[in-house]
């Protein structure tokens, strides 16, 4: 498993539009992708789970990836965040 901490700096936080696109992209990967915020782990492939975290601006979240292509998946998911207009700061 690999982990990456990121900070969501977008002023709207993790709202519906990017969340829907990122979950959809995540669904394209075999690897298990977990998003952790405020000690809660959710499946990044589930828009409802991601949005139920109500992640506000300047939150630190952790991406954990388990599977056969962990590195590539992480790289792609980080890019997806950026492409969908969510500014992130990796830590």
């Amino acid at each position: 498993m690999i982990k990456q901490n990121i900070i969501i700096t977008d002023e709207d936080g993790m709202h519906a539009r990017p969340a829907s696109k990122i979950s959809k992209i995540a669904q394209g990967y075999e690897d298990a992708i977990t998003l952790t915020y405020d000690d809660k782990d959710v499946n990044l492939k589930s828009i409802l789970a991601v949005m139920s975290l109500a992640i506000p601006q300047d939150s630190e979240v952790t991406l954990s990836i388990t599977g056969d292509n962990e590195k590539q998946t992480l790289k792609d998911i980080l890019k997806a965040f950026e492409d969908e207009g969510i500014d992130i700061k990796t830590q």
Partner: protein
Amino acid sequence: MKNKQIASKGIAIGKAFIYQDEGFDVPKNKTKDVKKEKEKLKDALKKSSDDIKKIKEKSEANLKQNADIFDAHLEMINDPELIKQTEAMIENETLAAETAYDKVADQYIEIFKNMDDPYFKERASDIKDIKNRVLAYLLGKTPKTNIKTAQEDTILIAKDLAPSDTATLDFDYVKGMITEMGGTTSHTAIMSRALNIPAIVGAKGLIEKIKSGDTIALDALNNNIIINPKQTELDKLKAQQKDWQTHLKTLNKYIDNPTKTKDDHQIPLFANIGNAEEAKNLKDVGAEGVGLFRTEFLFMQSAEAPDLKTQIKAYQTVFEAIQPVIIRTVDIGGDKDIPYLKLDKEENPFLGVRGIRLALQEKKLFKTQLKALLIAAKDQDDLRIMLPMVATINEIKKSKAILNEVKKALKKDKKAFQDNIKLGIMIEVPAAALNAFELAKHVDFFSIGTNDLIQYLFAADRTNENLSHLYEPYDPTLLSTISRIIQAGHQEDIPVGLCGEIASKLDLALILTGLGIDELSMSPTSILEIRKTLASLNITDLRTLAQAILKAKDAKDVKKLIKQFKDDNL
């Protein structure tokens, strides 16, 4: 149904479709066949996804709204966690698919409902929306929005229709509309006229008298609604409908002519529009331009602020369809709430943070809109921007400073944009009306917004049915206020238009022309009738009429004068 009013003229006959936001009572069904229930779930999810895809395509095609929210709905329907939990419940508790799905979806609705952040809280309604659709299929019913797939003439009947409701309705088969609430300036009324669909509003108590599928004859010429009409009544109505269409045809001769009086005084008749799609048909109804493009619809029909690209596309659609166009910057607030802006709840929203007040507060939103307008108009002759709800000179100055910032940023980025900008204001706040002589020195045009000016002038809520006697456009106080605003504009050599509902009324259009208004902007369907009438009158006579009306002592007097005038001249 005593207080019902005609909102848009015409006759329509069709099957009643009662639009209401109803949930489902889901029985606690057990199952013996887990596999079958899972299949049922899969099938309902597939049907629901297909629906949403179709709705999304439609919305994108006609640009009625930002379709991004439907991507989120699609993801919610196919959410792997929601499906997994539902399947687990079917298996572990041997529940029927509808019972399990209802329970699991409700858990999510509860989570969102209890959130502090108003944006996320509002998402509970999105989940409810998809839940009701999936449940409808699981219970073998038709989802409520299936009016989209109606295959016969339909009369849409609702308690009230919010802009967000109408945004998702498909009007291909909607031949008429009836609402129980609202007056002739309600959203339903304005929209029905824009779409040219006969409508009656304020028909209280109608819904309990009918059921979906009843035949409804909507006679919006005589303000009459007949439930399951007899054949003789149908025949009579169809004959009237034919006469009405013939009448409309005689008006068609005036489509390509500019509006002028018999003695050659020109007075352009513009259209008011509420979304980009409406612009496409304006030339067919004889509009000579757009005098009011209400841009807030763009902001109200999606879960988030429309981005730059979406806005540019919408504005360009309008610019390509017709010229000139006066664009009113976003006028949110009052009765138009926007969940994602997280606005404070106000005791008195019509006197609250709305129009330019909100724009100056939500600068990012305002700047994005101005930027989109400047870019979208880059190939036009000019760009006419109008600010709503202006009360003071300071608001104009602040808006100009922001506009300059936007221009500077575009120049720095070397982006092509329209530099020939005419900045105007709505005159709809009494303070602006009183200070019109000063305000005129700071702007390029005025447009009198009578819908709000009347309610503020008489301190009478225009949606309050008990105050409709005060909402009186024939009142000489209003007419002399308008006359004064026109004088103020003309003293500074700027044009003064008018874009309220009153411009659509023939009598008032005649009075306003006599008062010297430079342009009237109205419901598109009223243009030809007014053009035809003006063509048979002299401006000199209309001016004399207007002067007499300014001396009238009350609305009744005004009405008498205009009736006399029409009897003598038409």
